[in-house]
């Protein structure tokens, strides 16, 4: 039976099979106790132990089966998990805003710090140069590479979000650093463009994809902080194992939800955000971004409520 379960993980035992397995488990357990009393070949003991341990895993698993994965269940689980940990989301937003403030004031106080704070070489040009180049472009500079650019953005952003979540296991230190650093970049870019008088360009460029991408990374940060809370367990009487077990489902729901959002953000960034006035009016792009943000907010606030 145990071998069959190993070879066919989906095999469902009949009631007779379950009874037989339980009977054999009890016999093997009794034999193992006898082996503790009567010294014998270590291999024999190891053999009986392996039978008992495998049967134990099957018989004593009492956690409810999650059943078949359903699309509607998944969609509802994501906003519910988000709402259960609103405090962590607020903290993620706060840390990012703190980073934004730092980046903003650093660039305003010392414009040369842009080279250190911004990791993307394309953003190191003066805003006026970039705006003139992109608004005045007569050809599609992403022609023949939009899909691969979009795929690259999706994979990169999902990796950043997963890393922000995963760093929660370092008592949240890694998550806090990543959220703050993302905020610093955002603040530095904003200071650069707003200071040069290109606020509309900045909003038109960032909002269509950023309205989804930035919340998705914040969701990763939220999940990372939830994980950190479970690892640290301030004021909790439950063991670390129980705390982690309790939040595992929520972490997955948030991670899956954030990944789905980033797929959309990747498509929008490659196919919409990179096109500016006169191809796409800024008003339209800003309205599109605000619409996305509103829809996401309503979804997270309302979806999955009973």
């Amino acid at each position: 039976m145990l071998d069959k379960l190993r070879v066919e993980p989906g095999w469902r035992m009949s009631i007779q099979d379950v009874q037989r397995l339980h009977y054999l488990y009890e016999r093997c357990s009794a034999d193992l106790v006898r082996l503790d009393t009567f010294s014998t070949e270590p291999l024999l003991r190891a053999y009986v132990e392996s039978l008992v341990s495998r049967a134990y895993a099957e018989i004593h698993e009492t956690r409810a089966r999650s059943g078949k994965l359903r699309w509607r269940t998944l969609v509802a689980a994501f906003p519910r998990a988000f709402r259960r940990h609103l405090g962590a989301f607020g903290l993620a937003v706060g840390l990012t805003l703190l980073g934004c403030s730092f980046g903003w004031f650093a660039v305003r106080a010392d414009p040369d710090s842009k080279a250190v704070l911004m990791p993307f070489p394309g953003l190191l040009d003066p805003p006026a140069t970039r705006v003139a180049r992109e608004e005045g472009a007569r050809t599609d500079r992403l022609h023949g590479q939009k899909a691969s650019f979009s795929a690259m953005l999706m994979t990169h952003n999902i990796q950043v979000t997963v890393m922000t979540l995963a760093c929660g296991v370092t008592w949240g230190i890694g998550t806090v650093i990543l959220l703050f650093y993302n905020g610093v970049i955002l603040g530095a870019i904003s200071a650069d463009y707003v200071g040069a008088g290109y606020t509309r360009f900045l909003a038109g460029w960032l909002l269509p994809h950023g309205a989804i991408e930035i919340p998705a990374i914040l969701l990763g940060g939220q999940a990372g902080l939830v994980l950190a809370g479970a690892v640290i367990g301030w004021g909790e009487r439950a063991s670390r194992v129980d705390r982690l077990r309790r939040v595992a489902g929520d972490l997955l729901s948030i991670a899956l939800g954030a990944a789905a959002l980033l797929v959309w953000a990747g498509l929008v960034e490659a196919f919409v955000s990179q096109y500016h006035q006169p191809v796409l009016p800024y008003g339209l792009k800003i309205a599109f971004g605000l619409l996305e943000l509103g829809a996401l907010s309503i979804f997270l606030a309302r979806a999955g409520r009973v």
Partner: protein
Amino acid sequence: MRALRIETPEGVVFSLHLATPVLRALAWSVDAAVLIAASLVMGRASGTLAVIGADWANAIATLLYFVSSIAYGMAFEWYWRGQTLGKRLFSLRVVDAQGLRLRPAQVVLRNLLRSVDFLPGAYLVGAAACLLTRKCQRLGDLAANTVVLRETKLLEPDVERIAPAKYNSLLALPHLAARLRTRVDPEAVRIAAAALALRDGYDPPARVELFAELAGYFRSLVEFPEAAVEGLTDEQYVRSAVRAIYAR
């Protein structure tokens, strides 16, 4: 070797052997090789998609590689109950740290946290965590409450080969045979069984000396009546003792 001891609600205690960081690294290197091979195949396959445009073919290849590198561990560990190809090759298995079945959330979480364990490269954080934790867990294992076990290939001892079923005068006295079983050192039984299995390969003087020593040990544990052991050579005595210990 580190072991995980589990006590069942019935009060039965059993041990599971934990996989060492070296074995886990070997299994991971196999998985990495499989992923590289898969990415090469996907690269070739995406070349055939050039009919829909090189841009889309590149995008599909990028996404396929990304999804497969993340989903590989999750899919295999879920479908094969805690094993990937590499782990299967090295007889390793991921299980719940309480010895229970793996849950989907545990499989996904431990695989998502690989990104931290991999830092700063070559799984250094994960390896350090394995060495420092009692249950040899990387950070992903700690968060998902899982452990990696080494499954030993277990064969029942071949008593028929080392001590064929013949009349056994020691088994005629079951109370003394039982006393022998309670007193004997399992390691000594293992040595005696190995000596019997290899008896034809020894030099005659060494064989006599070895079995004299082993028989002396067994005789020191339980004193059988003279009638039961009369005429038995040292080697026959050891064979009878081993057979009596297994009580076949």
